[in-house]
């Protein structure tokens, strides 16, 4: 107990030296915590904007649909999936879609298109559909005989809102699917390749056109939190047993993107490790100096009868006290900084809008790792680093050290 009090007093006796040590550890903690936060924040941010603009975190299909897409490989019992998804609190939004190929014509021009049947309301929540409209308007809830064209397709067909486009295709039952739709809007999804063939219909109209009878080809699910996606996917899988459906997360259906992001995560981890190393070396340097420069002081302590193990304990306690103080103060600042950056981000250039998303901000994240990783590194290092000089100081020869100026 006495040791604790002496150690504590020692810190405040030499204010300038303590302040320097404190600041080194403090800034080291805050900056490395910020680095870790940004690492997580970027990963989540990129993945979220990638998935939330079109693909969703989870997709449900008929089990062979992705390998061999066909009009008749459908999710038959959409109401059952709907009930399941509605009962899971982790689902933020979901939307059914159906896909079919067709030929669209306007005047002299004809183009192969991909018909995408969407539920306008649900799609707004799941993929921000309304934000991608470049011209014209979104579907109304009661819309029928209306179409939204991808920007590239509209350009090729020379279509403007108000024009009437005719589509010809084959329905699921083999009959000819043929109808005319009025263009109400043009869409820019940020992906020119898909916009060149995109032909959006309200889900009901598409189901009527292709005789799909309430069925869908794909259901996308957006989870509330990215780190809960895997757990959510396995709950959906369990809930849909024996239905002949397959449930996949973005890691599977957007595999090359996933691999890309894993590279990014690995790169960030390497950089964070280097940063932590520099922080550790800073701590090492500071503590080592602070102890070595005070040999005379420890010599006097010894001369007046302090036991070696008490000096040893004193040095360790003092260093750890300081580190704890710095980590505590650093946590407060890093909570504020990371919290702010998690919400507002830092902007680095003019906004570039990509599929209705702003893509030019770096965000941070708040989680346990942000505090735990730097805190553990610093505390462990402080103890380790103080050990050697503490041992040395406890074995000092008082007569010799006191002869130092």
């Amino acid at each position, binding site marked *: 107990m006495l040791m604790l009090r002496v150690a504590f007093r020692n810190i405040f006796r030499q204010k300038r*030296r303590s302040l320097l040590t404190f600041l080194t550890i403090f800034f080291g903690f805050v*900056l490395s915590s910020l680095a870790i936060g940004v690492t997580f924040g*970027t990963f989540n941010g990129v993945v979220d904007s990638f998935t939330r603009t079109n693909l969703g975190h989870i997709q449900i299909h008929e089990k062979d649909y992705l390998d061999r897409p066909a009009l008749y490989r459908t999710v038959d019992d959409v109401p059952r999936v709907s009930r399941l998804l509605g009962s899971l609190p982790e689902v933020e939004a979901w939307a059914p879609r159906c896909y079919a190929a067709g030929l669209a014509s306007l005047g002299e021009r004809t183009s192969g298109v991909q018909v995408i049947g969407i539920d306008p309301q649900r799609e707004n929540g799941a993929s921000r559909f309304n934000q991608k409209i470049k011209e014209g308007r979104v579907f109304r809830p009661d819309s029928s005989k209306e179409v939204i064209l991808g920007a590239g397709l509209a350009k090729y067909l020379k279509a403007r809102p108000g024009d009437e486009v005719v589509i010809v295709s084959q329905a699921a039952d083999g009959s000819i699917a043929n109808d005319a739709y009025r263009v109400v809007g043009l869409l820019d999804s940020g992906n020119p390749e898909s916009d060149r063939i995109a032909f959006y219909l309200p889900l009901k109209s598409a189901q009527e056109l292709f005789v799909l009878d309430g069925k869908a080809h794909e259901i996308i699910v957006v989870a509330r939190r990215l780190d809960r996606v895997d757990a959510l996917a396995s709950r959906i899988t369990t809930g849909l047993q024996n239905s002949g459906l397959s449930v996949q997360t973005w890691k599977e259906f957007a595999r090359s993107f996933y691999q890309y992001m894993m590279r990014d995560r690995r790169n960030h981890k390497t*950089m964070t490790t*280097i940063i932590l190393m520099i922080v550790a070396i800073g701590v090492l340097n500071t503590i080592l*100096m602070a102890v070595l420069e005070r040999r005379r002081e420890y010599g006097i302590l010894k001369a007046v009868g302090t036991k070696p193990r008490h000096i040893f304990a004193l040095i360790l306690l003092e260093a750890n006290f300081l580190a704890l103080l710095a980590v505590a103060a650093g946590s407060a600042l890093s909570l504020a900084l990371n919290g702010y950056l998690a919400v507002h981000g830092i902007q680095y250039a003019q906004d570039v809008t990509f599929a209705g998303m702003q893509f*030019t901000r770096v965000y941070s994240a708040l989680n346990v790792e942000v505090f735990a990783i730097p805190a553990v590194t610093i505390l462990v290092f402080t103890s380790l680093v103080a050990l050697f000089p503490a041992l040395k100081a406890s074995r000092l020869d008082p007569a010799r050290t006191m002869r130092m100026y």
Partner: protein
Amino acid sequence: MKMFLKLAWRNIMRNKRRTIIAGTTIGIGLAAMIFMDALMIGFKNDMIRATTGQFLGEGQIHAAGFRDNMEPALTIRGLDGVVSGLRSDAAVDRFTLRVLSQAMLTSSAGVNSVVVVGVQPETEALISQVDDVIVRGDYFKGSSDREIVIGSKLADLLEVDIGDRLVLTVAMAAGGELSQEMFRVSGIYSFNLREMDSSMAFIRLAKAQSLLGIDGQAHEIALTFKNKMTGQTETDPFWGRYSRNGNEALGWVKLQPQMKSVLQLVQLAMIFLGLILFILVSLGIINTLFMSIYERVFEFGVMRAVGTRPFGLWRLIVFEAGSLALLSIGIGLALGFVVTFITAQTGFNYRGIEFAKATINMIYPVLELRQFLVYPLFVMIFTILAGIYPAFHGARLVPAKALRRTM
């Protein structure tokens, strides 16, 4: 002046332990900055390779309009001129010719529509990774011109394996007549990516040309650059040189626009992390210098007491900071060079992440002269600047007070 320099140097050499600790700390900081810089270039190259290395290439040349609908007749204009231009172009590292066509692939079990790619096996292997991810059979090792290399998913769909026959049907360039040929599956690759593994088939360039009736022509030139930046610099003069006479040359950023924003964001976070390291090293320098000067108040007090002028002491401390910086830079440069040089040769192999092959999984830091000029200069300037404040403090010491030291 000279005396102060000598004195400063002797001073830092007198307390070897302190100097070594301080010099090593600053030196490691400098080495870390050099290494981080080299590593960031390596990461960036790796991310670009992840996007461009599988098949795309860092840039492509087509006839204008070919990308819209793969019209077989739209071959690259003046191919011989373009090829000889590329061969002598200093910016270009490697290139390969391709013929591309929509095709039907028929086996005894089924039929599938694919994009058939006629390739020059030797140069293609240097641009794309198809040869690296062969899972069964081999990559155009035989001499027959009827070899076809297909993806693993496609092999499953068509229920074929090595040695099985496939019939390829394409529409010829002139007139659109159908042209058919029998091939034998000689290799099966797997990128573990559905799209790449289910929709492409590779045959030899000459065979593809004769099938389509476009002898000596090509649809696409995929290339890589000596400098990775060229591929994403939209204003580079390279694009203008080859985007004429009805051809268009595009960088991967234009070919895959959605990756651009992802890469930008990832880069931005990198720069942010680099900045944090920079600040940390600067703080380390300040701290080291302050410590080593404030702990010596007694010593400076003695110097003042024996008659050193305040300016003389100020100069001494600043010179000491300079000498320490020189020493640290020596340590840092040596350390930074050794670490970066070795890792640049051997590369880093990250295990635990499932990528196609280990060779694709290596990161190579990139050494640049700039790293060994800018960062040491920064350390020199910053160390001297950081020494100025404590130097003022030392110069203004009152000798009597400084000497009345406590323990």
